[in-house]
Every structure is written in structure tokens, then in C-alpha cells.
């Protein structure tokens, strides 16, 4: 390995390959097993890559295909702290999602699984790419399969909802494209191995060396932020999210909320803050204020949500808002907290979606008001959900606690008031989560929930894995934190 093929390449090409294979699979179980098999292999690879973080394995973790062109971009992919963690999250999320996808729930499944894997490839690319143009490529490519998945297999209002989502993100990323171009035109000249040279370059390290005045940074910041803010989403760019989560098939919702929203945060970490440290400094208060408004706002709406999926969607908005806020607190504690929390949030929310999907499948409704007393019909399901929910409200010894603790600490160090106000969110989170548990699971079962049966062994297994992860990281988060140390330090270095 190493000299032949590198981790990032494997991470990108394998799912792509698998996806294309899946398209030609005739039977469902064939397609599904291919998908699961490949995603498990990928998980293995990604897990292995966690043990090769050391600098001396650089040519295992980074590759830079040069091909002659006159705009100076190369196929430059590499794994660094954040990217490694998020690729691992992606690699971890997909097997779980695919396993949780119950049989023949989607018509013509082969293309369904194919598209799923394609989106995985796109995500991997986003997290690996070290070249702005490449990054933009993958940024869009991750979107397209998801668009098709949502509007093909979603609920009845899927087309409008998904299209709203698409236009939102597409517009945002086009603005980012302009920003990329502008920065590109200010990068120094680049000389290639073969003697040819380009006037500018898209490579990350060249972008870091771009000559940008403070004035430029101030508006470039917003061009980039538009794309990331929509993706996260930050208040007030969030209205696509609840509808989309509600309408799209749950497997896709898991991808969206578990992994895809991290793209926005990742973008901020990898591109926004390092490229425009001055502007980031300057606008940090504005962004944090927005994010905190988002936290309170989303939590309040979650209080009165009757639709289970929308409730989770809004709670996710609140969580992302917190991450965004503490990203812009810009100290190492908050950075590492965010990086840790991105991973945790991915796991928790996927678990939450699995359970909610099960409930919807078993009862056929997703309105809290119609559900009641599932607890004594399906105790295991209940326990699982309660654990997920508690992780969602960051109870100690669940994985979310260390992350949120660090984030709040960082935010508080940046400015006590932000920390304090943002922390109100944890109360609201407790309120709506417990209300949801009470309404759905406690009390006496009604006509709808009478026939509910408990979950199968297989589902127990899948959820069990997630629960184990939750507690594992909750009790001993340090290894994950260490993984992101270098990245955070480097980031701090850029901002200073």
C-alpha cells in the first residue's frame, strides 16, 4: 500500500465503483448485499486509516495526481484530522443506514442503493479533497444523488420539498464558486512537475497563500458562508430542512442529517476560517448571534411540533446551531469540541431516525398526538429511543456530553453571555425531548398503537451497535479528541 494506492483514493473510488455495480444488479438482495459488503469494506479501510495518522505515513494519506491543464488544478486528495474523522463517520454511517433499510421498502432498489453509494463517494470526496475545484465538484456531486433519492422515493410532497432544498443549496454553492474563483485569481503562480506552469492554482496550500486584502475577505467571507450556512443550516437559511427531512425516505434523511449537514461545518473548518481569518474574526459575533438565535428559535418550534420527523429536524437545527456558534468562538477547546460533536451528532441522529422510522413503519403515523403507550408494547424499542433521546440532550456518560461540554466551554471562554444564552438550549431540548417520549411511549396504548410489536433481533443488533458507540465515546472520548488535535492546532495557527 502507500506507494500503490492511498486511503483517500480507496475511500472515494470504492463506493463509486460499488454504486455503478449496484445499478446493474438485478435483484434487490443482490444490490443490497453488494452495497452493504462494500460499505463494510470501506468501514474497515477507514478504521485502518485511523491508525496511520502519523506524519511518516504521509504518502498513505495524501495523493496528488497531476494532469496537464492551464488552470492549475490537480486531483489532490488527502486525509487530515477533521477529514479523517468525518470520513470515518461516513464510512460508519452507511453500513448502519443500509442495514437499517428494511427489505423491499423501495421500488427498483438497485438504483436506490446505487445512488446511496454514489452520494457516499461524493461525501468522501468532499472530506478528502485538498483542491478547491475538486472540493466544489464533490460538493455538488454529493448533492445530486441525494436529490434524486429524495424526490424519487420520498413522501407525497417530495418533489416540491426536495426541489426547494436543491435550489437553496445550488444557489449557495454557486455563490461559493464565485468566491473560489476570486480567491483563485489571487493565488501565486504554480509550477508543475513537468515544467508547465499555471498562472494560479486551486490547491489548498496555494489558497492559503492568496493575497487577499481585509476588504476582499469581508465580502468573500459571505460568498462562502452562503453555501455553508445553507448546508448546515443556520437560521434563517434553514427552512428547507424540516420539509426535506419530513418528505425524503428515512435512509436518505439519515444521510442528510447524519453526514451531509456536516459538510457545511467541515467547509467552515477547512475553507472559511483558514482562508479569511480576518473576516472570520470580524463577523464572528454576527454569525454566533445568528446561530444562537437559531438554537433558541428551533428549540421553541420543536416544543410545539406535532410531527415526529420535523421535531427531530428542528432539534438537529438547534444542535447544528450550537456547533456553528462554537466554531466561530475560535479557540482550540471549541474547535475540538465541534469536531468531536460532529461525529457524535452523526451517530445519535442516525439512531434517532432509525427508531422513528421503525415507529412510523409499525404504526403508519408520525404525528405525536396520534401515538401513545408504545412503551409496554415495544419495551426494547422504547429503551433504545430513550437512550438516543438522552444522548440527544447530552446527558453525561452519553457521547454528546463531552462534545457539548467542550463547545459550551469554548463558547463561554469567547464570551460568557453567548455561552450562557446558548446553554438555555439544553433546558428546552430536555423539555421537548421528554414531552415527545411521554406522549409517544408512555400512557396507555390506543387503537393505532395496539398492534405494535417489538423490534426484531436484527434491528436490536443495529441499534445496539449505536448504543454501544454512544456509551463508549461518552465514557472515554479522549481517543476521538486526540484524533482532531493537530487539525485544531493548525486551524488556530491560521486564525492567529
Amino acid at each position, binding site marked *: 500500500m502507500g506507494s500503490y494506492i492511498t486511503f483517500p483514493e480507496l475511500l472515494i473510488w470504492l463506493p463509486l465503483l460499488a454504486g455503478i455495480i449496484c445499478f446493474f444488479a438485478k435483484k434487490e438482495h443482490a444490490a443490497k448485499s453488494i452495497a452493504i459488503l462494500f460499505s463494510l469494506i470501506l468501514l474497515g479501510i477507514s478504521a485502518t486509516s485511523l491508525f496511520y495518522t502519523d506524519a511518516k505515513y504521509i504518502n498513505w494519506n495524501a495523493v496528488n495526481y497531476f494532469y*496537464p491543464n492551464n488552470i492549475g488544478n490537480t486531483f489532490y486528495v488527502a486525509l487530515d484530522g477533521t477529514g479523517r474523522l468525518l470520513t470515518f463517520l461516513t464510512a460508519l454511517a452507511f453500513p448502519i443506514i443500509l442495514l437499517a433499510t428494511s427489505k423491499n421498502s423501495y421500488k427498483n432498489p438497485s438504483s436506490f442503493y446505487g445512488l446511496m453509494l454514489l452520494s457516499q463517494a461524493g461525501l468522501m470526496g468532499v472530506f478528502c479533497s485538498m483542491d478547491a475545484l475538486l472540493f466544489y465538484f464533490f460538493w455538488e456531486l454529493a448533492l445530486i444523488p441525494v436529490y434524486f433519492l429524495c424526490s424519487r422515493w420520498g413522501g407525497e410532497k417530495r418533489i416540491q420539498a426536495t426541489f426547494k432544498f436543491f435550489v437553496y443549496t445550488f444557489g449557495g454553492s454557486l455563490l461559493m464558486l464565485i468566491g473560489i474563483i476570486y480567491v483563485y485569481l489571487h493565488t501565486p503562480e504554480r509550477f508543475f512537475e513537468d515544467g508547465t506552469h499555471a498562472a494560479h492554482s486551486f490547491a489548498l496550500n496555494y489558497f492559503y497563500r492568496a493575497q487577499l486584502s481585509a476588504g476582499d475577505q469581508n465580502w468573500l467571507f459571505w460568498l462562502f458562508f452562503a453555501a455553508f450556512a445553507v448546508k448546515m443550516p443556520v437560521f434563517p437559511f434553514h427552512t428547507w430542512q424540516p420539509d426535506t427531512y419530513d418528505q425524503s425516505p428515512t435512509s436518505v434523511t439519515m444521510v442528510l442529517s447524519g453526514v451531509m449537514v456536516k459538510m457545511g461545518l467541515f467547509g467552515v473548518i477547512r475553507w472559511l476560517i483558514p482562508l479569511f481569518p480576518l473576516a472570520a474574526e470580524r463577523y464572528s459575533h454576527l454569525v454566533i448571534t445568528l446561530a444562537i438565535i437559531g438554537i433558541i428559535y428551533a428549540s421553541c418550534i420543536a416544543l410545539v411540533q406535532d410531527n415526529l420527523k420535523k421535531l427531530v429536524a428542528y432539534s438537529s437545527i438547534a444542535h447544528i446551531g450550537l456547533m456553528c456558534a462554537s466554531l466561530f468562538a475560535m479557540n482550540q477547546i471549541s474547535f475540538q469540541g465541534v469536531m468531536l460533536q460532529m461525529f457524535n451528532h452523526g451517530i445519535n441522529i442516525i439512531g434517532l431516525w432509525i427508531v422513528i422510522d421503525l415507529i412510523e413503519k409499525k404504526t403508519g403515523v408520525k404525528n405525536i398526538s396520534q401515538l401513545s403507550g408504545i412503551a409496554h408494547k415495544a419495551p426494547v424499542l422504547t429503551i433504545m429511543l430513550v437512550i438516543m433521546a438522552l444522548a440527544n440532550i447530552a446527558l453525561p456518560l452519553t457521547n454528546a456530553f463531552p462534545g457539548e461540554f467542550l463547545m459550551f466551554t469554548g463558547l463561554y471562554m469567547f464570551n460568557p453571555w453567548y455561552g450562557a444564552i446558548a446553554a438555555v438550549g439544553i433546558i428546552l431540548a430536555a423539555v421537548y425531548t421528554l414531552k415527545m417520549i411521554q406522549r409517544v411511549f408512555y400512557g396507555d396504548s390506543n387503537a393505532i398503537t395496539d398492534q405494535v410489536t417489538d423490534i426484531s433481533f436484527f434491528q436490536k443488533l443495529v441499534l445496539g451497535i449505536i448504543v454501544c458507540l454512544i456509551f463508549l465515546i461518552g465514557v472515554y472520548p479522549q481517543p476521538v479528541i486526540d484524533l482532531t488535535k493537530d487539525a485544531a492546532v493548525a486551524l488556530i495557527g491560521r486564525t492567529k
Partner: protein
Amino acid sequence: MNAIILSAVWGIVMMFSAVFIKSKTVPKYLALLGIGLIFLVNALELYKGWLIIDMNVKDMIRTNSFNLAFIAVAVGCTAFYFLLSGRDVEKVGPHVAEYFALIFFSVCGVAISATFNTLLFLFLGIEIMSIPLYILTGSEKGNLKSNEAALKYFLMGTFSTGIMLMGIAFLYGGTPNASFFINNLQIGTGQMTPMIVTGMLMLIVSMSFKVSAAPFHFWTPDVYDGAPTVFTSFMSTIVKVAGFFAFLRLFENSFGSMHSHWQKLIVFITVSTLLIGNITAIFQQSVKRMLAYSSIAQAGFMLLALFAMNEKAREGLVLYAAAYSLATIGLFAILIKMNDFTIEGFNGLSQRQPILAFTATVFLLSLTGIPLTAGFQSKFYMLIGAVENGHHFWVVIVAVIFAAISAYYYFRIIQAIYFKEPAKEEVSFVWDITIPFKIMLVLTAVLIVVTGIYPEWIIGWLYF
């Protein structure tokens, strides 16, 4: 030069073939042969500088790798056009060979307007390009729409020709050394004389008309809608991009030094074109008409080349020519197979014709400008150019916002293809869809994707 001569000659060949060949299918193969030859000789000229006849053109036509490469692109697209829609040309009317002959003459005009070096040849090129189109537009004699379109096109076309000639006259009068050579108008770097301004302005108007840029675009929807679909496909792609190339060539060589003086005109035209094209396209129900408006919208993006007028923009224009033409030709080729041109006609295409559905999606994504398609690369180059140019930055923002809006109507078709249930009656296709046709579609799609991944294979030619 080779392309000009051979296409003219081959037009005559086609014309006479009508006398000897009675079969309806043979002319297509003859035309394919011809276009292949033209591509070949043009390529030879590009690589080796080899000429069919070495005549002294008195510098009235100037060939360099750049415009030869463009001719190669145009001819290549024409070849794809023949391969995809050749069989549909036969469906239009009895005079198949004549249709092909006209197309060849039009290609001759394309070649001229890509290489002209004097206003005379600009004029001739544009005319040679357009007059066959008037005829082709009206070639469906029984169809009133076709007639109407032809008349409208003709009247307004000649009108714009008049404007253009007036402009040329003013330029001639305005230049101190009476000359029609575009690079010899000797426009100083100072303020332009009123005559020059007037002349240039009238040229802008007439060229904008040819490339259907607002507010001179009004003929476009009607003509594209009325003309036989197969010819709409031709005139909305190859001819239009040729017009753009001529536009760019003229203004770069003659008024390039005064760019800052007339850039605001281009800004006005660009923005209004983007606005009208995109906004009006949204509400269209007929896909054919929608594509007409989308061609206007794309024109707005191509105008960025004139707005920027730098190296990247020039490359971008050629890329755009290829990307836009291929995608549109492909779409029209699929559209012809439909028996109703409304968007509902596409409902559930994916279930009946997966290959068509897939390729159509690729074409639409390319037109929208999604990465990995040629469409993205061309837009990307345009944007680089436009940003590099530095003035009127807001135009770029407007452009991308409209690019986002354009997704709205392109994706309506995609939604129809994939997410809507097919209409009950299964006979939604007039003509059978042959295997070669599918293969060609896939080939086109592949080409688009390849260009999207590695556009340098086209750009490389420009600096051969």
C-alpha cells in the same frame, strides 16, 4: 479556408445528388461523408496547415489555430447533429438532399463568419449562414406555423441586416483610412468619434439579433417554435454559437482596445438577456418553446465572453459552443421522438426508455451547469474570465443567480422524466427508437461528461 470551400462544394454535390438519387435515405449518408471530409480537411489545416487550394485571399480571411479549432467544434457538432437527427431530416419533406445542401451552405457561412477578417466577409458570412435558415424554417410547407416562422424570421433578419449594413457604412466613413479590415479600423485608444460609436452600436444591435440577445431576441421563440424541430436543433446550436464567435471576433479585433468604452452596453444586453431568457422560460409548457427560451438564457451566459473579453473568456466561449450545442442537439433529438412537446409528454420516460431518460438527464444537467458535465466547465471558464475582468462585478453575481434559477425549468423536465407517472396510453412515441440512435445518445452523453472532467482536450487545440 478548407472548410469554407469544401462545405460550399459539398453543398453543390448534395444539390445535384437530388437529381440522380431518388432514394430518401441515401442523402443522409452522403451528407455524413461530406461532413466527415470537411472535418478532416479542417483538421489537416489545423495540424499541418495543408490547404485544398492555395489561393491569395488578400488577407480578407485570416485563419489561425483558434478559429480553426472553433470550426472543428462547429463541424463536429454538425456531424453529431447528422448522426442523431439525420433520419428525422428525411421526415420533414420530399427534398431531403436539398435540405442537406442548405445545411452545408449554412456551415459554409459558419466557417466564413469564424474566419472573416473584413466587414465584407462578416456580412457575406452572416448572410450565407442565415438565408438557408430562412428556407429551412419554411421547409414544412403545409404547416402554417412553419410558414409564419419563416416569414417572421426573414423579415426581421433582413431588417437586422439593414441595421448592420448601416453600421458598416458608418464605420467605413468614420475610419480615417477608408478600410473594411476589422483590425485596420485604426480606432485610437482615445475617445471614439461619433461615427465610429454609431457604427459600432449598430453592429452590436445586429449581432445581438443574430445571437438572439435581449432586447433583439423576439424572433427567437417564435422561429424556433415554428420551424421543423430538426432544423430548430441546427439553427439554435451551431449557427447561434457561430454568431457568437463572429461577434467576439469582430469586437475583439476592431474595438478590443476600447473595451471599457462599450462594456456597459454589453452589461445591459447581458443582464436583460439573462433576465428575459430565464424568467420567461419558467412558465413555458411546451418543451420546444422552453428550449428556445433556454437558448436565449444560455446566450446571456455566452455574452459574458464579450463582457470579459480575455483569454479565459475566449476559451470559455469555445467550450460553451461545444457543451451547449451537444447538449441541445441531444435534447432536440430526443424531443423529436415525442409526439407531444409538452412537459407532460416526458412523464415517466425513465420507465419506458431508460437510456433516453438517462441521456436526457445528462444533457439537462449539463445545461444547468452541474459539475462533471461540459456545461459546468464552460460556465466555469466564463465566470473565471468575467471575474478576472474586474469591472462590474455584480454582473457575475446576477449571472450565477440566474444560473440557479435556470435549474428551475431544466429540472421540471427531469422531474417529469423520473418522478412522474407515465400517461396511460403507451404510444407516446411517433417513431421507433433504433439501437444506433441510443448508442449515439450515449456517446454524446459520454463526450459531455469527458469534457466535463477534462476540458483541456478541447482547449488544447486553441493554442495548437
